[in-house]
């Protein structure tokens, strides 16, 4: 016997509760077929590739630093952390526009698939304080991210990649 009421009122309440759960916590696995085979790849975000410059150099730090961009890189499917992956980062900061070459830099993930790059403070540009990240090497499909900061006073920003082999 299913533990749900089959009266009209009961079904309506169960449906509303399910709908509310989907809205607040995301769809459960049962209605997300893409996740049935494991970790789904990260899709590029709208506007993520804006002012992208190919082949930004790997740097210790962008400019004078003071702000941290970090995240993880994993493989789609099994979720294994990927090391030595080049992630490119740029933003409108206290030291330059997104279009300025010196606002761009890249870093590599460590053995745990974690990357972390110090850069100048991101400030609101075009109405939102946001950063840009790219995975643009050959092994996996290209992904462009554009995370937005909760507050323009934040001192760090996170973005995670799940990459799909080409």
């Amino acid at each position, binding site marked *: 016997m299913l533990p749900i009421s089959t009266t009209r009122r009961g079904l309506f309440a169960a449906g509303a509760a399910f709908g509310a759960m989907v809205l607040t916590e995301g769809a459960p696995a049962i209605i997300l077929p893409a996740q049935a085979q494991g970790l789904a790849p990260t899709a590029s975000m709208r*506007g993520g590739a804006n002012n992208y410059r190919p082949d930004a150099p790997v740097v210790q730090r962008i400019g004078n630093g003071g702000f941290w961009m970090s995240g993880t890189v994993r493989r789609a499917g099994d979720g294994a952390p990927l090391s030595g992956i080049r992630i490119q980062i740029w933003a409108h900061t206290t030291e330059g526009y*997104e279009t300025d070459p010196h606002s761009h830099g890249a870093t590599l993930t460590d053995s745990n698939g974690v990357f972390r790059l110090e850069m100048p403070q991101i400030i*609101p540009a075009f109405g939102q304080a946001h950063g840009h990240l790219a995975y643009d090497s050959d092994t996996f499909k290209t992904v462009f991210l554009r995370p937005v900061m909760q507050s323009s006073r934040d001192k760090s920003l996170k973005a995670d990649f799940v990459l799909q082999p080409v």
Partner: protein
Amino acid sequence: MTSIRATLIWAVVAGAIVVSLAIAGTSPLLAWRAPIYIVAGFAGVLALALVLLQPLLASGYLPGLAVARGRRVHRWVGAALIAAIVIHVAGLWLTSAPDVIDALLFDSPAPFSAWGVIAMWAAFAAALLAALRRPLDLKPQLWRLSHTGLVTLVVIGGVVHALLIDGTMGSVSKLVLCALVVAASAVALFDRRTWILLTRRKPQDRRL
């Protein structure tokens, strides 16, 4: 009494505009913007301020600018508003073209840009209609309904656009200016009762 009222109206309108511009002019964000971006941002603030003047001028609410004179100024302010919008968009384009292209194509990740683009096209259409009203000999009914409808879009789109932006405007002065824009437009809209044209029967339809 009347002069106190007149002074008060002008003080509120001019105060809201001057204070908004002054606060935007002292924003710390300006330190990290080049002149073109600064001008583009200011053109946006100015455009919002001009949108506040338009319903007041069209309805003759500003003391000393009764309807006939107010309408003449309304046309010039309308032209200035179009210029401000063009400078705003052009300056942003020069600063970061891909972001503006995304916005114009309604493909921007920023939730406010679509509102701004809608307001922009509505303002262009409202101004074009005003310019073509006499050459095309538009029917007063068509003219009033379409101009009123379009400028309502300008007000809603412009205000939502401004409120959602994290930019140079101070949050309180922005809220006050937007509230005044909505209030002035709403009062003018209800005062002029343009929608009556939608339901009023035409003289030839009346049964004698």
